[in-house]
């Protein structure tokens, strides 16, 4: 409960029966770092134009601190609120002390167990969540009048477990649980309704499904060229899913040792169907320099790679 105000002791109790901003059952969970790359708490400004470009930009931000990480189509979403803390006097009367902690739980079906490690990374840092219901409405914290903040998660409360397929029946997947921070008050919950989105917004578009990590295996490395076989890090342990949609403009090269961008002079993407991006050429590099082949989600929406190799 927020501190009582002596100047505004009573709240008017009229209700709006039309155009209610009511949130349905959560379908998507958007993980959001607490602070962005400029150390400002991540937010959605009321004045923002909520069109496809806005969400593509947020979901594929170059800096991971600025990025929204959507987990789409969660199942069995559950929200529970622990009993409020109440002090009971010896005469039997009670005094409210604090709201109980709110916990969220949900499952993600049909996802590889590798997903656990990706989700746990969030738990290493301060982060929050926006929730989205099936109609597209977004719920967060509206304590600031000009923006919607994420609901902050209690540090250390995130738990992610593998869910086994069983005869019960039960599908294979992942279960996620966490608590909201004690600073998150029910009265601050606020909703941006889907009718505020521009007509071009489509959350089923590939660029809004969350960024996929890519991995590269390098061969034929020389001081001026290298070949790469690129896969997602999903698939069979001994045969990952191939990354087949790369084109030359998607790639950049960086010399980690020299901390300098290196321009790619040419490359061959004709065997991309097999994940092969070959003959990647560049100006002469020093032996033992560490290079990094990059795919940036701002350029290639939905994908990211920062894979290193060493010049022989």
């Amino acid at each position, binding site marked *: 409960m927020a501190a009582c105000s002596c100047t505004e002791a009573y709240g008017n109790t009229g209700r709006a029966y039309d155009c209610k901003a009511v949130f349905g059952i959560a379908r998507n969970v958007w993980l959001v770092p607490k602070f962005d790359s400029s150390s400002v708490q991540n937010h959605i400004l009321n004045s923002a134009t909520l069109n496809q470009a806005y969400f593509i930009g947020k979901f594929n931000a170059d800096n991971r601190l600025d990025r929204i990480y959507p987990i789409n189509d969660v199942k069995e979403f559950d929200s529970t609120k622990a009993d409020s803390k109440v002090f009971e006097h010896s005469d039997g009367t009670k005094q409210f002390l604090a709201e109980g902690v709110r916990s969220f739980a949900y499952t993600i079906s049909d996802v590889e167990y590798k997903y656990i490690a990706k989700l746990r990374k969030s738990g290493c840092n301060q982060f929050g969540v926006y929730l989205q219901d099936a109609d597209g409405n977004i719920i967060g914290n509206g304590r600031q009048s000009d923006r919607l903040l994420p609901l902050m998660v209690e540090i250390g409360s995130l738990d992610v477990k593998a869910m086994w397929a069983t005869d019960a029946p039960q599908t294979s997947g992942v279960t996620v649980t966490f608590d909201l921070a004690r600073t998150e008050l029910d009265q601050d919950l606020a909703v941006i309704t889907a009718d505020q989105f521009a007509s071009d917004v489509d959350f089923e578009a590939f660029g809004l499904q969350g960024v996929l990590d890519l991995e590269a295996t390098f061969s034929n490395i*020389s001081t*001026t*060229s290298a070949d790469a076989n690129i896969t997602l890090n999903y698939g069979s342990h001994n045969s990952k899913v191939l990354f087949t949609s790369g084109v*030359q*403009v998607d790639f950049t090269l960086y010399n980690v040792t020299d901390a300098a961008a290196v*321009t*790619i*002079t*040419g*490359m*061959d*993407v*004709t065997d991309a169907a097999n994940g092969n991006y070959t*003959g990647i*050429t*560049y*100006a*002469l590099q020093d032996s033992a320099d560490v290079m990094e082949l990059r795919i940036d989600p701002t*350029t290639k929406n939905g994908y990211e790679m920062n894979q290193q190799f060493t010049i022989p």
Partner: protein
Amino acid sequence: MADWKVIKGYAFNMDVIEGKNGEKAISKTEFMKQLKDVLEKRNIDPETCWNELKGKSKKTEESKEEDSPE
């Protein structure tokens, strides 16, 4: 965003070839140093490629020479 030109399946960064958009133009010597092996592995003649990228065929060069006031 870089401009790319594809010759026989191999894509060349034209910013480097032509020295534009902040890139230093690659010399023919440097081009051969970087790309000779890569192109020959693909049965692409580096010399022909260089000429095509630079917008000059043998014929063009010859006619240029003929047209030259010198």
